[in-house]
């Protein structure tokens, strides 16, 4: 009896090995042109299993718990740095990544803050966090010279009081929102002191009654449908809302602006978990993504800039030519980056955010 069982198990195992090779990728939702996935399978003969998540926290918990079963994951820079410190990723074998020469030094230079020497990750997309507005609606309420490109729009209670009735959503992500409030106050957006938190508290408490919702993805639809007139969110998401509104021809005209006071620049990085079942196929996937044409196809689809210099000649004009996606030199200067919050600081930050949201 035992013998038969062992035999069956061995056979099952062999059958599993004989079937096609697999690579499991865990990426943000709505973040790739799905044709690329089919193309990867065709080119390499590897089965691609593609799952999605919608918050860095979710991914981080899986990485720290270990045994996620994924071969490639896509954390944002600050989260990546913490997870590298926790030993969650393996160093990339760059000999397996010939396309790494396509990468853009301007971006690799900045991502090296989170991942020194870019030893553990490659840049997938980068973008800014800023203001999306329904232009005609906001101008109707605040007048022709409404400050749609300034943090005044959402942090000045006088503006927010008027905007409240047509709806304002902000990201439910304190690591994005607190730096913005500090930039508005003219302070260092990366400050993490008690003084900085108190200042952010004061700014948010004044505008809290006028915020209709804290949410990190619903604003795409809400903005496109005209349910709200202002959203503070991620560049590509707001540009997607702009295009959906244009397609729907519903009279909604959405515009994205990186705030003139400075905007947060973030980087989503592809990395390989330390316990990835198939690191070899993971490298193949990274190399495939770093191919100039593939990377361009991804950016043309999701309206985010990428860290791939060679892809730029294949980018559509409404991507490479749009300063909301690829800011010019002067605008690039104004973008700031932030460092991760330590465990104690993170606790104070979460607590402050709960207080801002719930009043408790």
């Amino acid at each position, binding site marked *: 009896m035992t013998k038969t069982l062992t035999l069956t198990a061995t056979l099952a195992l062999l059958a599993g090995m004989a079937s096609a090779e697999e690579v499991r990728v865990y990426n943000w939702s709505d973040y790739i042109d799905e044709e690329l996935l089919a193309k990867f399978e065709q080119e390499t003969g590897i089965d691609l299993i593609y799952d999605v998540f919608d918050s860095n926290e979710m991914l981080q918990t899986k990485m720290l718990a270990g045994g996620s079963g994924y071969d490639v994951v896509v954390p944002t820079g600050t989260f990546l740095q913490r997870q590298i410190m926790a030993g969650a990723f393996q160093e990339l074998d760059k000999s397996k990544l010939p396309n790494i020469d396509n990468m853009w030094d301007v971006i690799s230079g900045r991502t090296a803050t989170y991942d020194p020497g870019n030893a553990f990750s490659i840049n997938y997309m980068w973008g800014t966090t800023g203001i999306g507005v329904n232009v005609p609606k906001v101008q109707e309420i605040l007048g022709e010279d409404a400050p749609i490109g300034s943090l005044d729009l959402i942090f000045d209670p006088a503006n927010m009081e008027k905007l409240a009735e047509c709806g304002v959503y902000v990201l439910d992500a304190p690591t994005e929102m607190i730096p913005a409030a500090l930039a508005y106050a003219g302070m260092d957006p990366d400050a993490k002191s008690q003084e900085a938190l108190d200042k952010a508290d004061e700014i948010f408490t004044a505008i809290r009654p006028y915020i209709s919702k804290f949410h990190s993805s619903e604003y795409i639809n809400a903005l496109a449908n005209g349910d709200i007139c202002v959203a503070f969110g991620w560049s590509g998401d707001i540009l997607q809302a702009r295009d959906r509104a244009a397609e729907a021809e519903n009279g909604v005209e959405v515009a994205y602006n990186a705030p003139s006071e400075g905007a947060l620049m973030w980087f989503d990085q592809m990395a390989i978990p330390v316990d990835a079942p198939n690191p070899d196929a993971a490298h193949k996937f990274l190399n495939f993504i770093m191919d100039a044409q593939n990377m361009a196809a991804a950016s043309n689809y999701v309206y985010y800039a990428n860290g791939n210099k060679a892809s730029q000649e294949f980018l559509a004009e409404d991507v490479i030519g749009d300063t909301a996606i690829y800011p010019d030199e002067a605008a690039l200067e104004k973008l700031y980056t932030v460092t991760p919050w330590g*465990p104690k600081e993170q606790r104070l930050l979460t607590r402050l955010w709960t207080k801002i949201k719930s009043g*408790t």
Partner: protein
Amino acid sequence: MRRFSLIAVPYLWLLALFLVPFLIVIKISLSDVAYASPPYVPQLDLTQGWAGLHDFFAALDFENFAFLTTDALYWKAYLSSLKIALVATALTALVGYPVAYGMARAPQEWRPTLLMLVILPFWTSFLIRVYSWMGILSNEGVLNQVLLATGIISEPLQIMNTNTAVYIGIVYTYLPFMVLPIYAALEKLDESLLEAAEDLGCSRLAAFWLVTFPLSRGGIVAGCFLVFIPAIGEFVIPSLLGGSDTLMIGKVLWEEFFSNTDWPVASAVAVILLALLIIPIVLFQRHEEKEREANR
């Protein structure tokens, strides 16, 4: 011997699937947060023998439980969850009783079908059912559209993202857990008792309050516990239907676990929640036992 092995199965089940995980949660609640995978220390290192075991236990402490008392957020969240669960349980009983009563009074041949209809929603994912409530309750949702079109209201009702939506969600989701035990109690009710009451001059209403209701009390109590206990720790319903200001312990736990990556404090919150729930669970157990004895 055979009897022993028969009892052993459920006990082993409880031991493996309840007690062991719970002990692991208690252990984590006594640990300290760390940047590591998994994100807490100490880790039990058995290669060090007795010394390792000693070091491991020496590093455990009740710091995280003490921390929970330093911030009003936690007890406010427990209280608010308690309130939401109590109100939702009462509402579920009010809605569930007439449904169960109607089913029990329906002609015999209809009852299996009615019972089926109560159970049917379980065939669809719980998450999808809560999502569809978003489509019904939102400002552009079905409910507001109908009310606006018929001219009953001129402005959409703000139900979505409020506590009202959370109550609706809980009542809807847990209704079968209330209906089924009440139905079971009402169905075995001896109808001749009602006839006797009416023969003795009771009005139908008086007969209901004097005979039917007291005899179905067992079902009501069972239903209330089955709704209250899971509702207090509910996370999905408040996070999908509730507003940013809906305070529930499930959400606080989520933030400790995911936002702060503080598994030890998250575990401490969970341990206290369980301790709070043990009281109603023990009461429920006693009630069940009494019922069983009464029916003997």
